[in-house]
């Protein structure tokens, strides 16, 4: 729901008649909102249920006692986030195309898929570390919300001073927005950003493995 509101507020409300990097703001902001959608949907789908299973139903303990390797366990818990993230962002892509024609190539799917994986791993990691339900909400407002507004969704990094650019580039979402945007605007594909998404994803995954290995308390 919120991506639709973002689209209305920023795309239509703010952005009418505005131009960024030589294209209309609407064309600029839609791929960013798709990246944002992929991020929040994947994170929440993978994280929330796991959080409830672990802290409230306690049934995650049962999975920990089953003969399943930590690797497949993390992958399994993440896949629900990947699936939902993909479905919702593809629906949004269709809405986006209907609003403003965009170029979509197979190269669009790759960064989208990796984005879903990366933020699903992040959701699983947050859920594994959370000591309460409140912790998940805190994580959302401390990490996801700033990413929403700083992650290259609503403005172009080229307009920023160097110091701020650095901050932007340590945010995983920035790289997702840039990859998706490059495809829809027909710009050269930023392979380095794609690598950065993979890097963040691997880091979150390794984090999950380490938490499970430690698995004390």
């Amino acid at each position, binding site marked *: 729901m919120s991506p639709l509101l973002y689209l209305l507020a920023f795309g239509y409300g703010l952005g009418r008649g505005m131009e960024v990097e030589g294209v209309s703001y609407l064309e600029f902001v839609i791929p960013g909102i798709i990246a944002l959608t992929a991020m929040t949907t994947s994170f929440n789908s993978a994280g929330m249920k796991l959080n409830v*299973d672990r802290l409230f*139903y*306690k*049934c995650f*303990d*049962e*999975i*920990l*006692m*089953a*003969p*399943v*390797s930590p690797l497949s366990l993390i992958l399994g818990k993440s896949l629900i986030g990947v699936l939902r993230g993909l479905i919702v962002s593809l629906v949004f892509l269709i809405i986006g195309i209907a609003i403003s024609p965009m170029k979509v190539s197979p190269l669009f799917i790759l960064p989208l898929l990796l984005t879903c994986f990366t933020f699903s791993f992040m959701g699983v990691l947050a859920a594994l570390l959370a000591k309460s339900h409140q912790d998940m909400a805190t994580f959302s407002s401390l990490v996801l919300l700033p990413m929403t507004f700083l992650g290259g969704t609503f403005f172009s990094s080229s307009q920023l001073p160097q110091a701020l650019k650095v901050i932007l580039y340590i945010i995983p979402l920035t790289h997702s927005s840039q990859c998706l945007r490059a495809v829809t605007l027909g710009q050269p594909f930023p392979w380095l950003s794609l690598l950065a998404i993979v890097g963040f994803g691997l880091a979150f995954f390794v984090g999950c493995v380490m938490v499970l290995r*430690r*698995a*004390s*308390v």
Partner: protein
Amino acid sequence: MIIIEKLTKVYGEVRAVKKLNLEVYSGEIFGFLGPNGAGKTTTLRILTTLTKPTSGCVWIKGFDVITQPLQVKGEFGVVQQHLSLDRELTVWENMELHARLHHIGGVERRRRIAELLDYVELSQYANQIVENLSGGMKRRLMIARALIHRPKLLFLDEPTVGLDAQTRRRLWELIRRMNLDGATVFLTTHYIEEAEALCHRVGIIYQGQLIALGSPLELRQQVGMTTVETLSDNKDPDYHYFSDRAAATAYVQSLPPEVKTITTRDSNLEDVFVELTGRKVGDD
């Protein structure tokens, strides 16, 4: 079946388990008896790979629980103290998930789930959402789930806590039946009757330490088979232990007349606990 050596677990300031040495034999029902906070659940969580010990070793069927968790996990079934069902799923779906986690395929999976739900008398509730089941039904579902991979070793953490007397007795029957069917059972309890009625051997744990170990009969023999309770005015009862009735009767007859209420009865595990700790199992 299980060998525990010098097992210690420290949570910050709390020493939950202290240098525990214990062996559980194949085929027995072993009871871990102790009051709340004694360290029963902590020990069980270590045995079932959920918690890492501060120090010490545990082997299950020759596998080191700490370094070979994946090999150990297929060997046992667990019923935890707290409900650990996915309450959004149905009875059948909970079973199905667990069966898949234990790599039980297709036809075999359906057959076993149906069989186990029948075993715990939940067949007619297969499609009910777990949230809507009664406490006793949820417990039975947890037991059925723990049996899905036909483990030869079962851990039950206070399996009958909070159940009414009738449901408790049905569960005891079920546990005996599982034991007769070949499962070694390791259960924890703070109910004296449960340990006495059900367990071949009992270990009494108190403040993280094993303070007694043996069959219920052996433990009673240690304190004396007969107990005499005497009650002086405004005081807690005093307990006196005797090896047999004759000795107890002789003692009673020798008592001065101001000692008021006197009961002579068979000793039980509660007496063992009181003698060893100076407290009752039910005290907190």
